[in-house]
């Protein structure tokens, strides 16, 4: 049973560029959440997708957008990258009626 997978593992981008991160949920899960974890901090909630719709959103600017596909996989897009966007981006999946989120290994984004 495959767990949550994310790609790529590492990514280096330049300020002003755009980036797309990908996530495949755990088998059987239908809900995907994205979190940003700055170095030395706890993860911060970006948004959650269910049935291809954004269901909840944290306090992140519109430069952060996402998408969920019919197979429940998801993408996180960040436009106009800033140095402060450098972080570990974590994807978590769950069942809409479940009681826990399960995390992937993360994508380390470095903005130079």
């Amino acid at each position, binding site marked *: 049973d495959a767990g949550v997978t994310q790609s790529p593992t590492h990514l280096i981008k330049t300020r002003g560029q755009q980036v797309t991160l990908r996530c495949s949920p755990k088998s059987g899960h239908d809900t995907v*959440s994205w979190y940003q974890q700055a170095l030395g901090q706890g993860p911060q*909630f970006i948004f959650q997708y269910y049935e291809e719709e954004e269901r*909840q959103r944290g306090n992140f600017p519109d430069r952060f957008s996402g998408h969920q596909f019919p197979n429940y996989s998801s993408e996180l897009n960040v436009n106009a990258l800033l140095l402060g966007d450098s972080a*570990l981006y974590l994807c978590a999946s*769950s069942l809409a009626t479940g009681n826990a*989120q399960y*995390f992937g290994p993360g994508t380390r984004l470095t903005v130079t």
Partner: protein
Amino acid sequence: AQTVTQSQPEMSVQEAETVTLSCTYDTSESDYYLFWYKQPPSRQMILVIRQEAYKQQNATENRFSVNFQKAAKSFSLKISDSQLGDAAMYFCAYTISNFGNEKLTFGTGTRLTIIP
């Protein structure tokens, strides 16, 4: 807004001993879930244990148990018979949800070191 506070940035324990990590939270809700996640150097966040607020009985998972004090808004994690593989960052998390699968609010974490 809900907040989660972990007041111990770092803790250490001798192998095979017991250690308790502290967590407090602030909420006006009556129904919610609390979690402890472990993040080893590999970075993957691993669910250790969860507690439903409406359950008075403290959750237990093998060597991991919690002390849930709802009135005090306290949720501590006890690790018994500590092992080298327990070394990691431990995060306490909260969600306001009937199901426990919605937005998680995390604390700042406690780094646990196991001394051989």
